[in-house]
Protein backbone atom coordinates (compact mmCIF):
# COMPACT_ATOMS: atom_id res chain seq x y z
CA UNK A 1 0.00 0.00 0.00
CA UNK A 2 1.10 3.52 -0.73
CA UNK A 3 1.78 5.93 2.09
CA UNK A 4 2.40 9.64 2.04
CA UNK A 5 4.15 11.43 4.85
CA UNK A 6 4.56 15.15 5.37
CA UNK A 7 6.91 16.95 7.71
CA UNK A 8 6.87 18.91 9.89
CA UNK A 9 3.34 18.57 11.19
CA UNK A 10 3.31 22.19 12.30
CA UNK A 11 5.66 25.16 12.50
CA UNK A 12 5.63 28.67 13.86
CA UNK A 13 8.11 30.84 11.97
CA UNK A 14 9.07 34.49 11.92
CA UNK A 15 8.52 36.77 8.94
CA UNK A 16 11.66 36.79 6.80
CA UNK A 17 12.88 33.40 7.97
CA UNK A 18 13.41 30.45 5.61
CA UNK A 19 11.04 27.50 5.28
CA UNK A 20 11.31 23.95 4.11
CA UNK A 21 8.38 21.51 4.02
CA UNK A 22 8.82 17.94 2.92
CA UNK A 23 6.73 15.15 1.49
CA UNK A 24 7.65 11.51 0.90
CA UNK A 25 5.66 8.85 -0.92
CA UNK A 26 6.34 5.20 -0.31
CA UNK A 27 5.05 2.23 -2.26
CA UNK A 28 4.52 3.99 -5.58
CA UNK A 29 7.11 4.52 -8.29
CA UNK A 30 7.05 7.59 -10.53
CA UNK A 31 4.02 9.29 -9.00
CA UNK A 32 2.79 12.71 -9.99
CA UNK A 33 3.30 14.99 -7.01
CA UNK A 34 1.47 18.14 -6.01
CA UNK A 35 1.65 20.93 -3.45
CA UNK A 36 -1.56 22.64 -2.36
CA UNK A 37 -2.08 25.57 -0.01
CA UNK A 38 -5.17 26.13 2.08
CA UNK A 39 -5.82 29.37 3.93
CA UNK A 40 -7.61 28.95 7.25
CA UNK A 41 -11.21 28.06 6.48
CA UNK A 42 -10.57 28.31 2.76
CA UNK A 43 -10.41 26.20 -0.33
CA UNK A 44 -7.35 24.57 -1.82
CA UNK A 45 -5.02 26.33 -4.22
CA UNK A 46 -2.64 24.25 -6.29
CA UNK A 47 0.90 25.61 -6.06
CA UNK A 48 3.13 23.17 -7.92
CA UNK A 49 3.10 19.83 -9.63
CA UNK A 50 5.78 17.44 -10.79
CA UNK A 51 5.55 14.46 -13.10
CA UNK A 52 9.17 13.38 -12.85
CA UNK A 53 12.38 13.88 -10.90
CA UNK A 54 13.91 17.28 -11.42
CA UNK A 55 10.88 18.76 -13.16
CA UNK A 56 8.50 21.05 -11.33
CA UNK A 57 5.79 23.24 -12.79
CA UNK A 58 4.51 26.32 -10.98
CA UNK A 59 0.79 26.99 -11.00
CA UNK A 60 0.66 30.18 -8.92
CA UNK A 61 3.30 32.61 -7.79
CA UNK A 62 3.39 32.94 -4.01
CA UNK A 63 7.12 33.57 -3.51
CA UNK A 64 7.58 29.85 -2.93
CA UNK A 65 9.60 27.27 -4.78
CA UNK A 66 9.44 23.51 -5.06
CA UNK A 67 11.89 20.80 -5.96
CA UNK A 68 11.78 17.07 -6.58
CA UNK A 69 15.24 15.76 -5.73
CA UNK A 70 14.17 12.10 -5.71
CA UNK A 71 11.34 10.12 -7.24
CA UNK A 72 9.61 9.80 -3.91
CA UNK A 73 10.31 13.24 -2.45
CA UNK A 74 8.81 16.70 -2.97
CA UNK A 75 10.11 19.78 -1.16
CA UNK A 76 8.44 23.18 -0.75
CA UNK A 77 10.61 26.07 0.33
CA UNK A 78 11.24 29.76 0.50
CA UNK A 79 14.13 31.88 1.71
CA UNK A 80 11.91 34.60 3.17
CA UNK A 81 8.52 33.95 4.70
CA UNK A 82 5.67 36.43 4.46
CA UNK A 83 2.68 36.70 6.77
CA UNK A 84 0.53 35.62 3.83
CA UNK A 85 2.28 32.26 3.74
CA UNK A 86 0.41 31.16 6.84
CA UNK A 87 -1.94 28.28 6.24
CA UNK A 88 -2.15 24.56 5.71
CA UNK A 89 0.12 22.94 3.12
CA UNK A 90 -0.94 19.68 1.60
CA UNK A 91 1.11 17.31 -0.49
CA UNK A 92 -0.65 14.86 -2.79
CA UNK A 93 0.17 12.20 -5.32
CA UNK A 94 -1.56 10.58 -8.26
CA UNK A 95 -0.70 8.02 -10.86
CA UNK A 96 0.69 9.37 -14.13
CA UNK A 97 -2.60 9.16 -15.99
CA UNK A 98 -4.89 9.32 -12.99
CA UNK A 99 -7.04 12.18 -11.81
CA UNK A 100 -7.52 10.93 -8.28
CA UNK A 101 -5.39 12.66 -5.68
CA UNK A 102 -4.21 11.04 -2.47
CA UNK A 103 -3.35 13.59 0.18
CA UNK A 104 -0.96 13.65 3.05
CA UNK A 105 -1.97 14.81 6.51
CA UNK A 106 -0.69 18.32 5.88
CA UNK A 107 1.72 20.77 7.49
CA UNK A 108 0.32 23.74 9.37
CA UNK A 109 2.36 26.93 9.13
CA UNK A 110 1.92 30.03 11.23
CA UNK A 111 4.02 33.02 10.28
CA UNK A 112 4.35 35.68 12.97
Amino acid sequence: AQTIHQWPVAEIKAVGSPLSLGCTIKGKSSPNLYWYWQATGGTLQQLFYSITVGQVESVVQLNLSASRPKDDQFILSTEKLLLSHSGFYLCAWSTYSGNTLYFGEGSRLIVV
Partner: protein
Amino acid sequence: AQSVTQPDARVTVSEGASLQLRCKYSYSGTPYLFWYVQYPRQGLQLLLKYYSGDPVVQGVNGFEAEFSKSNSSFHLRKASVHWSDSAVYFCVLSSSSGSWQLIFGSGTQLTVMP
Protein backbone atom coordinates in the same frame (compact mmCIF):
# COMPACT_ATOMS: atom_id res chain seq x y z
CA ALA B 1 -13.42 28.86 -17.98
CA GLN B 2 -13.56 26.02 -15.53
CA SER B 3 -15.13 26.58 -12.14
CA VAL B 4 -16.80 24.78 -9.27
CA THR B 5 -19.45 26.39 -7.07
CA GLN B 6 -20.59 25.05 -3.74
CA PRO B 7 -23.39 27.47 -2.87
CA ASP B 8 -23.76 26.41 0.76
CA ALA B 9 -20.83 27.38 2.94
CA ARG B 10 -22.40 25.75 6.02
CA VAL B 11 -25.02 23.04 6.41
CA THR B 12 -26.40 21.81 9.73
CA VAL B 13 -28.52 18.68 10.01
CA SER B 14 -29.66 16.41 12.80
CA GLU B 15 -28.22 12.95 13.22
CA GLY B 16 -30.22 10.43 11.25
CA ALA B 17 -31.53 13.00 8.79
CA SER B 18 -30.86 12.86 5.08
CA LEU B 19 -28.26 15.10 3.49
CA GLN B 20 -27.64 16.80 0.18
CA LEU B 21 -24.61 18.98 -0.48
CA ARG B 22 -24.79 20.92 -3.69
CA CYS B 23 -22.14 21.33 -6.36
CA LYS B 24 -22.36 23.09 -9.70
CA TYR B 25 -19.57 23.05 -12.23
CA SER B 26 -18.69 24.93 -15.37
CA TYR B 27 -16.67 23.11 -18.00
CA SER B 28 -17.14 22.76 -21.74
CA GLY B 29 -15.46 19.37 -22.09
CA THR B 30 -15.92 16.03 -20.37
CA PRO B 31 -15.56 16.60 -16.65
CA TYR B 32 -14.06 14.31 -14.07
CA LEU B 33 -15.74 15.06 -10.76
CA PHE B 34 -14.83 14.17 -7.23
CA TRP B 35 -15.98 14.69 -3.68
CA TYR B 36 -13.36 14.88 -0.98
CA VAL B 37 -13.87 15.17 2.77
CA GLN B 38 -11.58 16.95 5.22
CA TYR B 39 -11.85 16.18 8.91
CA PRO B 40 -10.51 18.77 11.36
CA ARG B 41 -6.78 19.35 11.08
CA GLN B 42 -6.35 16.54 8.58
CA GLY B 43 -5.67 16.05 4.91
CA LEU B 44 -8.34 15.28 2.37
CA GLN B 45 -9.84 11.88 1.75
CA LEU B 46 -11.58 10.77 -1.43
CA LEU B 47 -15.27 9.98 -1.00
CA LEU B 48 -16.19 9.17 -4.57
CA LYS B 49 -15.48 10.02 -8.18
CA TYR B 50 -17.30 10.17 -11.48
CA TYR B 51 -15.68 9.63 -14.85
CA SER B 52 -18.48 8.30 -17.05
CA GLY B 53 -21.33 5.79 -17.17
CA ASP B 54 -24.01 5.52 -14.50
CA PRO B 55 -24.67 9.06 -13.28
CA VAL B 56 -25.15 7.85 -9.72
CA VAL B 57 -21.89 6.85 -8.12
CA GLN B 58 -21.46 5.18 -4.78
CA GLY B 59 -18.76 6.17 -2.35
CA VAL B 60 -17.50 5.27 1.07
CA ASN B 61 -19.51 5.45 4.28
CA GLY B 62 -22.89 5.43 2.51
CA PHE B 63 -22.32 8.54 0.42
CA GLU B 64 -23.43 8.78 -3.18
CA ALA B 65 -23.46 11.52 -5.80
CA GLU B 66 -25.46 12.12 -8.92
CA PHE B 67 -23.99 13.66 -12.05
CA SER B 68 -26.28 15.76 -14.22
CA LYS B 69 -24.89 17.10 -17.48
CA SER B 70 -28.03 19.10 -18.22
CA ASN B 71 -27.85 20.85 -14.84
CA SER B 72 -24.04 20.91 -14.64
CA SER B 73 -24.30 19.50 -11.17
CA PHE B 74 -22.76 16.83 -9.03
CA HIS B 75 -24.67 16.80 -5.74
CA LEU B 76 -23.59 14.64 -2.82
CA ARG B 77 -26.20 12.71 -0.82
CA LYS B 78 -26.48 10.50 2.19
CA ALA B 79 -29.64 8.84 3.44
CA SER B 80 -28.85 9.05 7.15
CA VAL B 81 -26.00 11.10 8.60
CA HIS B 82 -23.97 10.32 11.68
CA TRP B 83 -22.28 12.81 14.01
CA SER B 84 -18.92 11.57 12.70
CA ASP B 85 -19.80 12.91 9.25
CA SER B 86 -19.18 16.43 10.52
CA ALA B 87 -16.39 17.76 8.32
CA VAL B 88 -15.71 20.00 5.33
CA TYR B 89 -16.69 18.59 1.95
CA PHE B 90 -15.06 19.69 -1.28
CA CYS B 91 -16.37 19.21 -4.78
CA VAL B 92 -13.53 18.98 -7.29
CA LEU B 93 -13.36 19.22 -11.07
CA SER B 94 -10.65 17.84 -13.29
CA SER B 95 -10.42 18.29 -16.99
CA SER B 96 -10.29 15.20 -19.14
CA SER B 97 -6.76 16.11 -20.09
CA GLY B 98 -5.30 15.08 -16.79
CA SER B 99 -4.92 15.93 -13.16
CA TRP B 100 -2.30 18.61 -13.56
CA GLN B 101 -4.69 21.24 -12.30
CA LEU B 102 -7.76 20.33 -10.32
CA ILE B 103 -10.33 22.97 -9.51
CA PHE B 104 -11.62 22.88 -5.95
CA GLY B 105 -14.90 24.30 -4.79
CA SER B 106 -14.94 26.54 -1.75
CA GLY B 107 -16.11 23.71 0.49
CA THR B 108 -19.19 23.09 2.61
CA GLN B 109 -18.85 22.80 6.36
CA LEU B 110 -21.24 20.07 7.53
CA THR B 111 -22.27 19.97 11.15
CA VAL B 112 -24.31 17.03 12.37
CA MET B 113 -26.19 17.72 15.58
CA PRO B 114 -26.63 14.77 17.96
